[in-house]
């Protein structure tokens, strides 16, 4: 039976920059998927693109391409990524420049467009698409002027189209992470648009590897059992045309692939396990069978899926005010008591200055006392040191800026043993909030454009 190897070399923008190179060089691989877009990353790219029309994509991806371009062309390893962000054409142009510098010819790069809905938002809402916030039920129309980006999550089909046209690299904007693994399977095995079980299998393979090392020993509960985590191998799926696949990693790498490490990743960011909805299929996680098949090999089978839904998920971002946070370290005896006093000083001084925040708009955390899990971990009477972390948010920038001026004075006008105040006053940062919504899929799919060009 035909088998292909699909790896994930980047779980998010900020992940290990050597990982995809090690994945490429460490063993057999046919496809590498790389994810760069968190929920609000596109709003940052929108800013960059407005300042410079040649930007608006994940520039880290160019660094990777520069390191490996001749090699991926030579070995015909195909790279699929959402690094195109809001400007996949500019990303392609930059890759072509790098190819010319390196003397690589015959390189085909595919670009998938049609996910960017920002220019269409007014028309869409005017035409009756409410784009209600999936969490709050609020319609988008009153907030249109604050929207910074709006993109539909595309599925695997346009990527398949680019692969069919011979693309070595496929640059997308917003696309489901799972599509980056599913697309090569559809392309290689000729799976049809209603092969729901197969599409669900490819989607779940994508879910397992989409966060890089999180299925190979990273973030694992029993971390002490994981060998050589410093050298963790990124995941490889060996996919078969019948929908069965094996999760593994290259030989000689650290980490481990066990039923337990894979199961932990299966439940990561999971909602209703019977209905994992993507543009391609609705996958049922309660159908998955896991079996250890030798060292660092987990066989996955039995997966069932059902029809996709008539909607695509939209991810919009909008300006929702300002926030700032700052921290100091309190060392020496009675550290907890000193941290509480320091916090009290800040809040009382701000109040006297006429700057107040609603309880939900200010945060006081004594890091070291179990502040991430209040009420769960026992709090000791004293600690050798505590980090006091304070934060505020407001629709206006001014009160947030005023807050930023109250941290440094604690060094000389607070309790003793205050240190670790570096980096200047905390500055107000824009809060770019996330607006999830649904849109009828034909509104998007009728306008998807796939182009493949050769350098």
């Amino acid at each position, binding site marked *: 039976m035909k088998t292909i190897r699909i790896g994930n070399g980047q779980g998010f923008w900020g992940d290990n920059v050597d990982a995809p190179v090690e994945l490429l060089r460490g063993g057999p691989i046919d496809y590498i998927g790389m994810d760069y877009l968190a*929920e*609000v990353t596109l709003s940052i790219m929108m800013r960059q693109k407005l300042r410079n029309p040649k930007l608006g994509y994940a520039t880290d991806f160019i660094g990777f391409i520069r390191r490996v371009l001749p090699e991926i062309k030579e070995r015909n390893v195909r790279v699929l990524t959402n690094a195109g962000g809001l400007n996949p054409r500019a990303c392609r142009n930059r890759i072509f420049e790098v190819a010319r510098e390196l003397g690589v010819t015959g390189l085909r790069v595919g670009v998938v467009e049609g996910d960017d809905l920002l220019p269409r938002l007014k028309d869409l809402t005017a035409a009756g698409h409410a784009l209600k916030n*999936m*969490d709050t039920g609020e319609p988008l129309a009153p907030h249109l002027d604050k929207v910074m980006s709006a993109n539909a999550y595309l599925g695997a089909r346009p990527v398949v189209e680019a692969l069919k046209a011979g693309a070595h690299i496929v640059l997308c904007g917003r696309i489901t992470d799972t599509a980056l693994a599913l697309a090569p399977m559809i392309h290689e095995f000729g799976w049809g648009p209603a092969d729901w079980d197969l599409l669900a299998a490819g989607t779940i393979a994508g879910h397992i590897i989409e966060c890089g090392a*999180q299925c190979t020993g990273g*973030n*694992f*509960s*029993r971390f002490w059992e994981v060998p050589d985590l410093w050298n963790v191998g990124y995941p490889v799926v060996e996919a078969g045309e019948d929908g069965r696949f094996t999760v593994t990693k290259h030989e000689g790498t650290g980490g481990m692939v066990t039923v*337990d490490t894979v*199961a*932990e*990743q*299966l*439940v*990561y*960011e*999971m*909602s*209703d*396990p*019977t209905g994992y909805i993507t543009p391609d299929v609705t996958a049922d*996680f*309660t*159908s*998955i*069978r*896991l079996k250890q098949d030798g060292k660092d090999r987990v066989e996955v089978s*039995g997966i069932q899926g059902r029809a996709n839904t008539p909607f695509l998920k939209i991810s919009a971002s909008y300006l*929702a005010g300002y*926030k700032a*946070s700052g921290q100091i370290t309190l060392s020496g005896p009675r550290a907890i008591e000193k941290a509480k006093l320091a916090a009290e000083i800040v809040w009382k001084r701000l109040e006297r200055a006429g700057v107040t925040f609603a309880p*939900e*708009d*200010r*945060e006081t*955390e004594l*890091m070291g006392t179990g*502040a*991430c*899990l*209040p*009420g*769960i*971990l026992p709090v000791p009477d004293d600690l050798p040191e505590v980090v006091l*972390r304070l*934060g*505020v*948010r407001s629709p206006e920038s001014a009160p947030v800026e005023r807050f930023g001026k109250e941290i440094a004075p604690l060094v000389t006008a607070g309790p003793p043993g205050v240190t670790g105040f570096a980096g200047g006053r905390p500055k107000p940062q824009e*809060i*770019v*909030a*996330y607006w*999830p919504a649904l849109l009828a899929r034909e509104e998007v799919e009728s306008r998807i454009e796939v182009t493949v060009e050769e350098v």
Partner: protein
Amino acid sequence: MRVKLETIAHARSGDKGDASNVGLIAQSPEIYEVLRAQVTAERVKEHFREVCRGPVQRYELPNILALNFILHDSLGGGGTESLKNDAQGKTHAQGLLQMEIDVPEGFAGGQT
């Protein structure tokens, strides 16, 4: 015999907007049944009473011996809006593993 979940199960957590999810995975089918009976949505809500301001939902995945909990309104606004250090609920799995449950004396499933 009272044991912490960390001795008989493992877990992972992440975020979904302002909710966190915690997947709890048993180390054997016998332990899964014990978890299913005792680690109810109500108990998880009580365990996270200072974290979770909304309801707790529970889903079952018997095929991988897992329970999936959704802790609504737990992240101070979630994502970029939250002021919390753990704005994505990354630590909630570690928190759930501190819960104590009753297991039969000499229960074979546990590891120390």
